[in-house]
């Protein structure tokens, strides 16, 4: 019983930490913010944007990781408490998009962190982000 209750609470209240890993345009970051606005309103699913890694459980990463940002992304990943998920949002976070082959960026978040969900699109539409968050939560065992 407790297990089902905890699972229900984890699915129903995912707190999100938005991490810009550097190597991308800010199209995806603005779309994440647009998803919290009255028209798309992520708060319907209990999603709240949190400032500190300590409070968050879903890490929404945008942008391909630049070499400068590499160990910061790792450190922030370690700061997030245990049942955590990583969502690679946008084409840059998935596979480097237009910056593949650049000398200063890695090609995507999965070169560094274990990624649970990918959100395609350059930039993705807020509706796609909501669909990804809901699918990620339902797939959580």
């Amino acid at each position, binding site marked *: 019983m407790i297990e089902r209750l905890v699972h229900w609470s984890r699915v129903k209240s995912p707190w999100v930490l938005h991490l810009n890993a550097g*190597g991308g345009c800010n199209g995806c970051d603005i779309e994440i913010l647009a998803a919290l606005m009255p028209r798309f309103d992520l708060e319907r699913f209990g999603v709240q944007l949190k400032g500190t890694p300590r409070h968050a459980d879903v890490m929404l990463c945008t942008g391909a990781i630049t070499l400068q940002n590499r160990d910061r992304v790792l450190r922030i990943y370690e700061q997030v408490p245990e049942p955590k998920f990583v969502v690679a949002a946008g084409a840059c976070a998935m596979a480097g998009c237009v910056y593949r082959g650049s000398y200063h960026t890695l090609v995507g978040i999965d070169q560094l962190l274990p990624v649970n969900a990918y959100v395609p699109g350059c930039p993705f539409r807020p509706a796609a982000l909501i669909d990804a968050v809901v699918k990620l939560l339902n797939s959580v065992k």
Partner: protein
Amino acid sequence: MEYKVSLGPQHPALHEAVSIRMTLDGEVIRDADLKLGYSHRGIEKLAEERSYVQNIYLTERICGICSHSHTTCFTQGVEQLMELVPARRGLYIRTLIAELERVHSHLLWLGVAGQEAGFESFFMYTWRDREVVMDILEWISGNRVHYAMNIFGGVRRDIDELQKKKILDSLGLLKQRTDYYLNLAASEPTFIGRLAGVGMLSKEQAVALCAVGPTLRASGVPMDVRKDDPYAVYAEIPFEVCTADSCDVLGRAVVRVKELIQSYNMIEYLLKNLPEGPFKVKAPRKVKPNEVYSRYEAPRGENVHYIKSNGSDKPERLKVRAPTLANYPATIAMLKSGFIADIPLIFAAIDPCICCAERLVQMDNAYSGESRVLTFSQLRAMANERSTKVNTKKKDIAWPF
């Protein structure tokens, strides 16, 4: 007591990763230093390995908010290299998208300024109205952010009568909302109190530090590339440069809202006399060896592309200088005497588009502050100096309480 603190790349106030290293004395910032270099993606090196048409796709992804400005600056530069006269209707549509992007970028900025000042509801309202402009852009170009409208010689898609009518009615709603924001920003005491007197940048400082865009125009310098060096069809559109001379964040907000109203009139003018005829012209693949320096007035300021061609279909050199980089020295000058609470506001005031400036920053351990040993007299001197400064500032703020 001096603290060295870094406001790191992972910070809720900054939607992208930029970091400021400050030495603080209590709540007042003594010195600030911008550590840049995080979002450097080596775009200039990538551009040399791509053909001109592929570079349109690349320059569009320099920045997510002002993507059309980079492609327009690049395409009009290459059109000069090719000595190609673009179709007039294409130029009109290109300017129309430029002004629509300025509207959605300024509305975005108003919301972010509201969020930095802690005024969540203002943030929600402005971004809800921004969705109206995003819908218009989606009708025309099919995508909310990267429109891919530009091609050498004109534009990729045409605007038909139905779209023209839809744009004109939604403009009515936007005009009414912007008037509401103009008098709200001028009357809400907590909002004014929070923005007035913050981030002072005098006129001489702004000119000396080569600031650009609304940051410069809010210090009373009427420099606008659309007026000084008219490109596309700006020579034919009637509009005036909006300036304010209060030199603070409130002045920048007022300049941006005035520019919003100017943009609405421009969009109406553009739609009313959209010329008939083709909207794009055939363009050659190869370009003669030459060089061009093209300028563009992005929502954040002057955007500059320097393109040098060597006869092949790949550019020899592409230099991009985005407006945010030009405003960074001015930001450091503004941060020097502010409070901690003002940092996100000052930083948001130049509307930083970090990825635009290809520069970004990191954060060390937030508690690495090494503090100087101060004799008691030094401490008292610093306290008196700070209290005198605070009192004078209070008089000129229109803070009613």
